[in-house]
């Protein structure tokens, strides 16, 4: 029991241990909910509430991503509290401005730069997830679990461009 508490209080687990936990979550998602661990769809479902006001006859927001509280929306709420629980359990919970030591070293101390890039990057990520039909969790992980070819195409593309982008933005600091 003490050992378990000690493990839970650790800030960082071995990625293999955390992976096993996610694997179990994956099994339960398929077995109990008959669903995928999709995340990016949740943002689209929520965006559809606004989208339908602007364009009531929009096909995408009426049929592809309707304005509903879907499984991913609830899952996303859970992920928020799960991440919070993880931080609370290790005592690292605090309000942050998305700071990162590595970021500051490479790109300077200005927080607004980080926020701007986060905002633009967020748009890119969500838009790309819309094109591909899922994000890292919904397509790469959940699709990969069920050996969907789409997942492996997505992972290949993600790593190819991710490595190149990191190479470009880090330049000589790479």
């Amino acid at each position, binding site marked *: 029991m003490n050992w378990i508490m000690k493990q839970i209080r*650790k800030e960082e687990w071995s*990625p293999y241990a*955390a*992976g*096993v*936990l*996610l*694997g179990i979550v*994956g*099994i339960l998602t*398929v*077995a*109990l*909910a*008959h669903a*995928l661990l999709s995340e990016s769809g949740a943002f689209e479902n929520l965006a559809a509430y606004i989208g339908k006001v602007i364009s009531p006859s929009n096909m995408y927001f009426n049929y592809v991503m309707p304005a509903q509280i879907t*499984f991913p929306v*609830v*899952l*996303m709420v*859970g*992920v928020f509290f*799960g*991440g*919070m629980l*993880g931080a609370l359990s*290790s005592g690292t919970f605090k309000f942050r401005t998305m700071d*990162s030591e*590595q*970021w500051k070293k490479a790109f300077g101390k200005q927080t607004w730069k980080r926020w701007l890039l*986060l905002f633009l*990057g967020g*748009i890119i*990520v969500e*838009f790309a997830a819309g*094109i591909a*039909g899922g994000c*890292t969790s919904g397509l790469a*992980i*959940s*699709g*990969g*679990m*069920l050996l*969907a070819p*789409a*997942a492996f*195409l*997505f*992972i*290949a*593309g993600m*790593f*190819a*461009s*991710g490595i190149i*982008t*990191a190479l470009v*933005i880090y330049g000589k600091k*790479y």
Partner: protein
Amino acid sequence: MTYVIALVLGVAFGFSLNKAGLTKYHKVVNQFRLTDMAVLKFMMTALVVTMLGVYPMRALGWITFPTVPATYIVGNLAGGLLFGVGMALTGT
């Protein structure tokens, strides 16, 4: 009921992401700089564990699989290529 399951699974999902350190900028970006392989180790372990669980269960006829994301080569690949750019920029 489905919502309760979704919430519990979501909490466990978020917890695992936090413990793997994937909530941190440097973990994600360093994966793309190939200096820290945690993201790949985490993802691939999860894939293998789930496969070990769900494939035998399907073979025994206990469960059926949900519809997997559709394969459309250009879309999946183009989406992935764009996604990687955003991911490396934000580190999320």
